[in-house]
């Protein structure tokens, strides 16, 4: 089949010589024809393969991005899972906006942890929880609606709740925060497409500010314009969607090269600034240290303002509100963050639950992994569903807002 020795082949083809122009044209035409046919054949193959996950979000000028309805792809960062977005743009089974009679709706807002692309849809904690709640077979049917979207910040969760989730008339809203949620609230220029989101801040009087400058800056960039202007192509062609992936890789490569060249000729004292600058342009390493030390405190205030607004919206819509701090392996979370959440929830009398202590305990005793890597595994989702189920029963959450009244006692606890 193949040559296994170093011997030179006896017969050699002709060396490269300039062909006649007509023969060259013919060869070029043949190449183009076969290339086009080959690429056309590749298009359905890539579709079946479910690749190019990056382009499965559409730009939303208010929220940042939303999942494209009816798209399916393969998630391939931590393990693999084939996922499908429903016709309403949720990683959920098909739902109706109008609430069916005798139904208790729970809307879950969150990020990739709740979206759970690492596991099949029926293993996500929202689906497991829904099945557990309906298992008793009572007169009330429970629906746990999954509104989570990858890489969402608390601010985006708030906007998705306000602009979309509340239309479903939920009886209970679970607002979730992943570990490191606070640090992810800042702008991240390395994020490419995921730059395109509003940044939230607080004014000295504590009021919330929604800032779209960073988002608009990216939308006005060449890549931002390409994504907006070629939506149809990237929605319908897997090959075209590849361009986004390549553009991002090339931009990263260019930045890396520029940094390495700059480092080659830079004096030692300036090197730290160049490295910091390659991470976030315009950052001076001396000031960034101070900025980072104060970042959590400031972002904690922003998070508190967002949660307060979200709670206000829920009160207006007459549904209960619960803030849940979702679990992650200890090495991925900051103890200070959990305290910030629990402190402001206590002071604002907002229901709050931290699932981490229970998960830490399980992790110490169980050999079954709770996390794929950062995100929960099938077992992790199962445990989260169990925790919520128990919490709902103990906290009296499963009464409709009319039954429970509009004001609730503050419920701040760690699930143990």
């Amino acid at each position, binding site marked *: 089949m*193949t040559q296994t020795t*170093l011997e030179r082949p006896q017969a050699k083809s002709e060396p490269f010589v300039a062909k006649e122009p007509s023969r060259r044209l013919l*060869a070029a035409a043949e190449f183009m024809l076969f*290339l086009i046919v080959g690429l056309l054949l590749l298009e359905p193959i*890539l579709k079946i393969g479910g*690749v190019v996950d990056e382009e499965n979000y559409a730009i939303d000028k208010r929220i940042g991005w939303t999942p494209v309805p009816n798209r399916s792809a393969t998630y*391939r960062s931590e393990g*693999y899972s*084939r996922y499908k977005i429903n016709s309403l743009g949720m990683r959920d089974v098909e739902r109706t906006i109008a609430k069916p009679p005798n139904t208790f709706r729970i809307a879950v807002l969150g990020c990739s942890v709740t979206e759970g692309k690492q596991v099949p849809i029926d293993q996500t904690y929202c689906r497991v929880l829904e099945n557990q709640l309906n298992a008793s077979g009572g007169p009330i049917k429970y629906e746990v609606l999954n509104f989570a979207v990858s890489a969402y910040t608390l601010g985006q969760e708030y906007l998705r709740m306000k602009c979309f989730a509340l239309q479903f008339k939920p009886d209970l809203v679970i607002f979730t925060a992943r570990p490191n949620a606070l640090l992810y609230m800042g702008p991240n220029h390395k994020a490419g497409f995921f730059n395109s989101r509003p940044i939230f801040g607080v004014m000295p009087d504590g009021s919330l500010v929604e800032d779209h400058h960073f988002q608009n800056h990216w939308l006005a960039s060449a890549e931002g314009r390409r994504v907006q202007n070629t939506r149809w192509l990237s929605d319908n062609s897997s090959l075209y969607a590849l361009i986004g992936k390549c553009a991002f890789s090339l931009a990263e490569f260019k930045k890396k090269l520029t940094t390495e060249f700059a480092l080659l000729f830079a004096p030692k004292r300036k090197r730290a600034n160049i490295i910091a600058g390659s991470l976030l342009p315009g950052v001076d390493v001396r000031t960034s240290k101070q900025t980072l030390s104060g970042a959590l405190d400031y972002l904690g205030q922003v998070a508190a303002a967002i949660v307060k607004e979200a709670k206000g919206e829920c009160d207006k819509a007459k549904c209960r509100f619960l803030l849940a701090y979702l679990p992650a392996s200890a090495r991925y979370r900051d103890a200070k963050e959990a305290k910030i959440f629990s402190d402001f929830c206590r002071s604002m009398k907002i229901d709050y639950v931290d699932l981490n202590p229970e998960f830490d305990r399980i992790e110490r005793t169980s050999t079954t992994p709770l996390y794929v890597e950062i995100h929960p595994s099938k077992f992790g989702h199962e445990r989260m569903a169990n925790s919520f189920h128990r919490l709902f029963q103990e906290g009296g959450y499963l009464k409709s807002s009319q039954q429970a009244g509009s004001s609730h006692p503050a419920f701040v606890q760690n699930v143990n």
Partner: protein
Amino acid sequence: MIFSSLNFLFFLPIVFLAYWLSSGTLRKLILLVASYLFYMSWLPSYGLLLFFLTAANYFIGLAIEKYSAKKAFLLLSLVINLGCLAYFKYANFLCQSFFESAAITHGYFGLIKVPQIPPVLDILLPLGISFFAFEFIHYTVDVRSGSKAIKSPLDFALFAAFFPSQVSGPIKRYQQFDEQLHAAKKLHQQDMVEGLGMLMRGLFKKVALADNLAVITSLSVNKVFALGTVDAWVLMFAFLLQVYFDFSGYTDMGIGAARLLGFHLPNNFDLPYVASKNLIDFWQRWHITLSTWLRDYVQTPLTGFRSSRLRFNVATLLTMTVCGLWHGAAWHYVAWGFVHGVLLVLTREYLQIVKGSQMLKRLHGKKWMMPLACLGTFIAVHFTQSLFLAKSVDDAVVIMRNMIWYKPSTLGLAEMFWQSPVVVPLILYSLWGLAFVEIPWLPSKNFGFVRSFLTATPARQYALFSCVFVAAIAFCPSSPSPFIYFQF
């Protein structure tokens, strides 16, 4: 810089152009500079080590040829090359093993008091050190046996540093390389087509297949206790494919890059998983250049030319144990090599029995026996590969136990495998295999027309390569994994 990186996508065309636009000594110099740049892109100080070993072996080669104390010079070469290998690759392993044994001795007899945590030496393994140390040993041993030494320092430096085979082989033989270095070179259409073809095939194997499989194996390798029976089989299957696609993909790219520069490197793989009738056959098809190196420079000296069966079998066991140790400085690699050694000896003994039995001969001559034998070999390799994958012998035992005794699945690896984007590239690769490769037990002649149609003209082949390139990028995961064989 690795072959499947963006850096290499820019590096290779620049070297290619500079190489073919120059001639004579300048051409060789360009290739040498490119090779050192390629090597030093990981860590510039690595270049010094390569330079030192090159210079030492060059002068030793000349000295062996010129002076009568040939044995002493050969010994010096072995000390330098194996000493470097032992220091950089095995120092921590030896140190750790010493302290562990001392701790056991202390536990039983209270003889030596040892620290609870063995000291770890801060040594960074230079990439490809095993490969070029083996090439140097081959060079000095062959010169000692009467082959001519390379006179030109530039030619020798190129043999040592040639970037397409530098960090992961194939392990070259200097006689053939030197001959090609001196041959008049012109850029041939065939070299271009075959070189690009190998490059694209290697890229597809690495990024579309191996890297996607790596996601599955890397997720589960640290969770061996949680593996169910199906998980364990799927994990080992994924790892087996990953190792093959990763390593053969890299060497294909190396062979392709060399071919673009007019060099023919030896092939390293010849359908090891689908055409190996038994384990002896497997080792003649898997990492061929290492197997032949071990045969020529370890097994043959151990066996001698007229040896008994017992001595031959002991030599096989020792050679395979060395092969295991070469793959990594850890006991599970040693155990893996030893187990393969035992299986090779058993296979050889069985083949002796077959030779003497008419009935068994007839049985092995049956048509249906061939795919069965290939399947049996595959399962044997599949099963023993857990020693290669696991982090320790204990972990390997857990994997093997889970493969044998039923345990329900907790990781859902089978589901993950089917949902992974590796299935479609695997099907594409298999279709390509049917059309382009002759598998002994498959009537692949039926697909020959596809090959003839697609390779009728260079234009069609370039179009095909472009499509393979696009497909490789499309299926490439967001975070490619490093080459497995770099650590060896």
